[in-house]
């Protein structure tokens, strides 16, 4: 057991950093387990930075970055990655946007070329913009509008918990905003945020570090430096009471609710933040978890319950402020307040007495296990390293997480439970709308 928690992780060996003259930060991480490589670019802009009146623009822009660049016609990026045997994707988060591919190691230089070309000179055209607005609208219909609980809670909860536009608005975007986006917006966004000094390049896998560094310099080195935007603070005061709102979901068969709380700032209270991550597991991971026991099996108030440190479901994925969520789906016969009261009761109990050591040990063993599994997948480990470097300032944090979580003390979990106060939270209820 303990040996598995403290065993030297393969990450301990060989992570190296470089910074190119244009400011691009580079992480080189050799991992010879399999003859594959991964290349990822994390750019320091997410949907919290998109301008007012342009909701959804950071994500729309991510789509545009796949539409061709100076050396690559529309569709060429996809074709070159896939015809090299690789897979690719991109995603837009609160504070960053990533672009990445995993390929057989023979394609390392090709992958670096593809990422460098679009970071240097993306082909932003009117035709591609209009086409990708249509594609993004279909993505939103698929993931939000045409399904039960679409956008629950990540789109629906923030406007209840937060006051300021960056934290409260819908990162997928309103259709009217998306339709008004124009080419000048795209050019300005690229010039402001996609400077090489505002990005982290991560290269992981079956590489020789020095050879990889040479290839990185060859392809990214001549991208001209541009001013790096000053990063605004998104801080706002915590809620000064319990805020409630309700929405109707035409597709939902059962009512649901989401509780939202503020998390500690991981930049100055990492241990407090991690205690919240452990608390989330203690509450709802597994049959023996506190809220699962109480709400699902004991009082039988809910069908499903889930807690998460981080609005998007993963811890440490965003800077401050970020959100601790508890969501539950319940029968129409159960009143919302009964569920909330039972949650408060369990939190109060944990705050007063804390978890027992054996209960805590089981939770952290599960964390270690899930992180090992995640890091067995090159793509997941690469993305974790890249985002930890960009968002938290230290890639190593991604690999240290099992050990740090295992070190969280019962008292810290009790304090985290006590910090989830009824008088500083948001409650969103979802009511079935009787449609399909």
């Amino acid at each position, binding site marked *: 057991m303990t040996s598995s928690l403290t065993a030297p992780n393969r990450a301990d060996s060989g992570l190296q950093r470089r910074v190119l003259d244009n400011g691009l930060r580079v992480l080189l991480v050799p991992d010879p387990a399999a*003859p*594959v490589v991964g290349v990822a670019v994390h750019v320091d802009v997410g949907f919290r930075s998109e301008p007012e009146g342009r909701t959804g623009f950071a994500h729309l822009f991510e789509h545009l970055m796949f539409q061709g660049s100076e050396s690559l016609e529309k569709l060429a990026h996809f074709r070159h990655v896939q*015809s090299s045997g690789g897979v690719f994707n991109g995603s837009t988060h609160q504070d960053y946007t990533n672009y990445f591919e995993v390929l057989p190691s023979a394609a390392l*230089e*090709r992958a670096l070329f593809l990422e460098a070309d679009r970071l240097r*000179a993306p082909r932003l055209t009117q035709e591609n913009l209009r086409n990708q607005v249509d594609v993004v609208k279909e993505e939103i219909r698929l993931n939000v509008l045409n399904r039960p609980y679409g956008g629950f809670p990540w789109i629906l909860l923030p406007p209840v918990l937060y006051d300021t536009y960056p934290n409260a608005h819908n990162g997928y975007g309103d259709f009217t905003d998306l339709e008004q986006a124009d080419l000048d917006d795209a050019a300005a966004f690229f*010039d402001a945020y996609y400077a090489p000094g505002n990005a982290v390049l991560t290269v992981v896998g079956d590489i020789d570090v020095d050879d990889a560094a040479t290839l990185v310099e060859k392809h990214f080195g001549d991208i001209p430096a541009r001013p790096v935007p000053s990063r605004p603070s998104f801080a706002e005061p915590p809620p000064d009471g319990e805020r409630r709102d309700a929405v109707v979901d035409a597709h939902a068969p*059962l009512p649901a609710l989401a509780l939202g709380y503020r998390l500690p700032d991981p930049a100055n209270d990492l241990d407090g933040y991690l205690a919240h991550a452990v608390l989330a597991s203690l509450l709802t991971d597994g049959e023996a978890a506190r809220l699962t026991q109480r709400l699902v099996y004991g009082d039988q108030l809910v069908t499903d319950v889930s807690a998460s440190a981080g609005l998007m479901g993963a811890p440490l994925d965003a800077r401050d402020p970020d959100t601790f969520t508890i969501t539950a789906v319940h029968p129409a016969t159960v009143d919302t307040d009964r569920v909330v009261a039972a949650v408060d009761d369990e939190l109060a109990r944990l705050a007063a007495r804390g978890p027992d050591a054996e209960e805590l040990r089981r939770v952290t063993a599960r964390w270690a296990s899930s992180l090992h599994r995640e890091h067995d997948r090159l793509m997941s480990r690469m993305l974790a390293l890249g985002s930890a470097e960009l968002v938290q300032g230290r890639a190593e944090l991604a690999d240290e997480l099992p050990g740090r979580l295992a070190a969280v003390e019962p008292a810290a979990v009790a304090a985290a439970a006590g910090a989830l106060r009824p008088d500083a939270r948001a409650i969103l209820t979802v009511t079935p709308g009787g449609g399909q």
Partner: protein
Amino acid sequence: MSAPTSSTRRSAEEIGSTPTGPRPLPPLGPQRAVPAPDEVDTVLASGLRVIAVRRAEVPMVEMRLRVPFADGTGPNGSGGSDHPAVAELLATTILSGTRRRSRVGIDDDLAGVGGEIGFSVDPERLAVSGHALADGLDTLLDVLADLLLDATHPEDELARERERLVERIEMASAQPSVIARRALQERRYGTHPVTREMPRPEEVSAVSADAVRALQAAALLPGGSVLVLVGDLDPAGAVARVESALAGWSSGDADALGPLPGLTAQDLLLVDRPGAVQSQLRLSAPAVGRSDPRYGALQLANLTLGGYFSSRLVENLREDKGYTYHASSSLELDPHGAVLLVETDVASEVTAPALLEVRYELGRLAVVPPSADEVESARRYLVGSLLISMTTQAGYASTLAGLAAYGLSSAWLREHPARIEAVTVEEVAAAAATFYAPTAFTGVVVADAASTADGLRALGGVEIRS
């Protein structure tokens, strides 16, 4: 946002070009081969096939168990059996207690070794998926044996799980993808048991604990089943530990799914979903499975049509027309063969135009053969993605279990890249012409009939009831 001032700001056109101009794509370098991992593949006296593979990248072990679990209550075609509901509840309540462990005790023991176990059923098989920290393998196997041999399915837990399952089914039944899947299965296979992927709520409510216990005793059997372990382990030692842990699981053959009825080409059925903002298009036709010599050519033809992003369907429906977020074509395998499935979700207002384009691409694939470049791109992708899928313990375990369930082994996986390399452009063209003729398809369109029926009627080939 903190945009630069207008004097320094570039236009979109300026951003897209540099003094150097377009640069050439670098060639591929040399590719290192993957050594075959240490493996033991054997059949125990009970008839259980066990495959254990050493992959020690992380200190974990992955476990997959597949038990053939077809409706054995009668000949295929008996639509009214309670098998799907009983099987679904079995998969849920098997974790709610054994003679030695309570529901919480099971979870605590697994959590102590960073472990999890999940059960699922479909009309073909019962699948168990689990993992644990490597030094917890014995605990993982002990819990597995306990569940397989001594699950009690207590009355009170069953009553609760019945209610939760009904709620989950009602929830899933509101998902457009689930509605479309059910409609497609019925359009393809009528009332055959294979259509019953999710029981109806009223069927679940009628299931007794005795029925669940009886099904576990009669059908959860080792003969013909496969257990795969991949991870930081010694293969021979792991097999011995399985043999010892599962010594009590000893008699009888599990029920394998028989051949499915052949698909009949027919009009697509319009299924009304009033008020839907998006429509689901699902088209299906007969194909062949891994044992057919044309399988590799079929895989490459399928990739060209819609098996990956750089395909004709995605480039047309998404990147040219903007009708959809995704369009795909895939092969659905069963123990005896395979069928093709072409699917996309599109905005309601472009339902008929999207169907027109899907049919156009099917016809084009059949009569305008994939070019040498298209075949080469699909070939590289297939070989590369096979390599990538084998690089994780979890992925490798799932892949092996899937192959072994159909009588194949890791040798098939190792040899498949060479088979794919040997497929000619002509063979791909022949497979495309054989399997993708638009007239070979059946299927469904799930859509708001009020806003889509006129267009679909004008297009034709769609059965519109009412």
